[in-house]
């Protein structure tokens, strides 16, 4: 063999090895780089999933949870171990039945049930995960919490309702005030005219009594006496003043109800104004009379309290809600059914706060639902009696809008007492 040839072969082989080594080195570096980039994108993806405000879960083909992000863990309010492997429907109630697991993406509203038993509304979307052959391997489900939005929507609807009620009340007040005016004026006229006529009749009677007993005058006198007896003039003279009083008093009541309705629904100024809370309570009682008068006796104990800075219309709503709730609670008891329940309203000074207490001896609030009474839409009342918004709105008004406090003390079967604390203005605190 020609050594030259061998040498060249060797050189070629060596060059080939160097080429291969270079290739391996390149491949290794590429591999490293792509692993690194894979690691980075996985981490990025995990970060994204973890940072997402929306809850995300991956389900297997049977609907059991395989993976979940932090938001899902937080919203379900359970540890990861209590969630993984369980069907999603254990924690989430949606109104589209089994439609969640279909071949296409679906969206629906659902309720998340936390370990504590609270439910909160959410918007859920579910899409199938497809394998290479197009078969369904699982599902990815995402949901967002919409309870805040729900609450705002509810408050907006409520505000709109109050506004249109206010406009209507103003219109009704105008329509009713005019007839109240002229019915009252006519009553005044009739009463005064009656008094004047009675006076004249008595003068006639006095004249008649001096007529001789016999002759044509005597006959006429006898006829007059008979006519008087037929009409029962004595009864009329005695009873008519009472009838006038009754009519005038009743009209006064109508006027005060219209006024209360107007005060209650008039949005008034948008600023907080110094307000006599006792006056608002009185107003509330006038409006809610129909709710409590057949079920409970009312006691009021209003202390002399300084004016506080509030939105009067809002506070009227709060008290109306509490009084109506008290009436409903009393109505559910045997005493309430016979009109012998009790509702007690009290105002007092309590440190830096004005305290308004609405207490009843009604059915009370069972311990099991005590935590949920302020949840929007939570209600134990039958359809048509309550929307579950009353206490949620009351708390929002007292706590958020006025910097006050709303407390409840209740024993099932014995009664409930709500306490509203409103901050006193600074000059009243010093006094």
């Amino acid at each position, binding site marked *: 063999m020609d050594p030259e040839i061998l040498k060249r072969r060797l050189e070629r082989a060596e060059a080939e090895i160097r080429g291969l080594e270079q290739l391996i080195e390149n491949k290794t570096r590429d591999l490293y780089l792509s692993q690194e980039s894979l690691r980075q994108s996985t981490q990025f993806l995990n970060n994204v999933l973890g940072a997402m405000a929306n809850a995300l879960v991956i389900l297997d083909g049977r609907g059991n949870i395989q993976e979940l992000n932090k938001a899902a863990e937080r919203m379900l309010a359970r540890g990861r171990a209590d969630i993984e492997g369980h069907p999603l429907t254990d924690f989430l109630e949606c109104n589209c039945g089994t439609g969640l697991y279909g071949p296409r993406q679906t969206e629906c509203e659902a309720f998340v049930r936390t370990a504590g038993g609270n439910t909160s509304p959410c918007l859920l979307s579910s899409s199938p995960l497809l394998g290479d052959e197009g078969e369904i391997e699982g599902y990815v489900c995402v949901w967002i919490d919409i309870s805040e939005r729900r609450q705002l929507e509810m408050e907006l609807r409520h505000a709109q309702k109050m506004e249109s009620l206010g406009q209507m009340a103003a219109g009704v007040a105008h329509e009713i005030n005019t007839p109240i005016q*002229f019915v009252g004026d006519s009553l005044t*006229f009739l009463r005064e005219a009656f008094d004047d006529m009675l006076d004249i009749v008595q003068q006639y009677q006095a004249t008649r009594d001096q007529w001789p007993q016999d002759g044509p005058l005597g006959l006429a006198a006898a006829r007059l006496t008979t006519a008087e007896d037929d009409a029962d003039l004595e009864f009329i003279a005695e009873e008519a003043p009472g009838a006038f009083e009754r009519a005038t008093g009743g009209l006064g009541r109508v*006027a005060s109800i219209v006024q209360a309705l107007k005060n209650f629904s008039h949005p008034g100024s948008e600023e907080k104004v110094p307000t006599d809370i006792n006056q608002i309570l009185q107003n509330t009682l006038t409006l809610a009379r129909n709710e409590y008068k057949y079920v409970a006796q009312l006691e009021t104990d209003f202390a002399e309290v300084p004016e506080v800075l509030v939105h009067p219309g809002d506070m009227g709503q709060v008290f109306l809600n509490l009084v109506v709730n008290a009436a409903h609670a009393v109505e559910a008891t045997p005493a309430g059914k016979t009109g012998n329940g009790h509702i007690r309203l009290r105002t007092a000074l309590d440190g830096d706060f004005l305290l308004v207490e609405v207490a009843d001896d009604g059915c009370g609030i069972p311990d099991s639902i005590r935590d949920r009474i302020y949840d929007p839409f939570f209600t134990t009342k039958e359809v048509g009696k309550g929307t579950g918004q009353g206490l949620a709105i009351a708390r929002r008004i007292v706590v958020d809008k006025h910097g006050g406090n709303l407390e409840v003390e209740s024993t099932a079967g014995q009664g409930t007492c709500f306490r509203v604390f409103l901050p006193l203005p600074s000059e009243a605190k010093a006094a």
Partner: protein
Amino acid sequence: MFDADRKPRILFVDDDPDLLNGMRHALRRDRKRWDLAYASSGQAALDTLEHFHADMVVTDMRMPGIDGAELLSHIAHRFPATLRFVLSGEASDEMALRAIPYTHQWIAKPIAKPVLIETIERSMALLTRIHSPEVREWIAHCDLPAAPANYQALQAALRVPEPDLDPIAACIEQDPVLTGRILQWTNSGFFGRRQEIRRVRDALTTLGLRLLSEMVLVSGVFHTWKEAPEHGPFGRAELLEHSLLVARQAALMAADLEFSETGVWSAALLHDIGYLILADRAPEQLRALENRLAGGEPTRELELEIVGCGHGELGGALLQAWGLPFAVVEAVVHHQDPENCVSSGVHLAGLVHLAGAIVRGSEPNPSYLASSGLAERYPLWKSEYSQARDQAA
């Protein structure tokens, strides 16, 4: 046209015949006290006024054709001596704003007859004692201008985004006309008032700032003074300064006495508003007073001779027609003769009187000083005032 001895003439206007008949029936017994007429539309009211020279018109707001606000504006121009009242069930802010420039008082429906009678009687009590038709016309003409500087300061304070009530109240309290107008509106039935309001700060919480700025705009408080002199014994600047000094002094004294009634500042600020009426409506009378005056305050006799009534009565009659609280009106009427007030002791009129004497350096009414029990404090206040004045100088 006017005869102070005849019965007051009142015209009621409402498009609802039931209401008008009800009113006619309810006021049957008052036919001896008043001469009453009724009209069922704005046009009918204007026709009636051609031959029935009413001292007061009481009209509904919502009426077809000429409505209440329009009717009152016609009356203000054609029958300027007539007091103009609204009796309304309910009205929008917009409607009230249209009526404000021409309305003395706003009464809310429903109103019981005795209250209506009292409101009307009280509004006219001083006016009917003034015999000169000319003077009555000055009073019924209700748009009195504010001092331009005060008006501008208020406008500026209102333009601040999210303005605070206190600086705005302070601004209004510098000016008698602004103060008077704001008390007029907030004491009216338009706000379904519960109790009388005597302080600007209280008035503002009732009124709200949006309505305040709109009311100020339409109320005519910014029309120009005709030919009233800016300076001189009855110059506008001097009148304003004097009112402010008396208001400050009276407020100091009230604080010193721990006097619990409100309205001291308002009453003191308004006590010489009679001169402002003259400055606006009758500057020639004011000049005549000035010419006959050797200095100091004109006597009541001199005012009677030249003007036809005292400046206290003149101002009081205007504020009464505006429906201001009785105690404030009384203080304005009797700030020179506080012993003639309904009650005795320390009251608004007495404080305004004594504060006025201190500021002017004139002698206080000796019988009031004795009967009010303030004879000991008075010299102290007086020397404090002169010390403070000397220091300021």
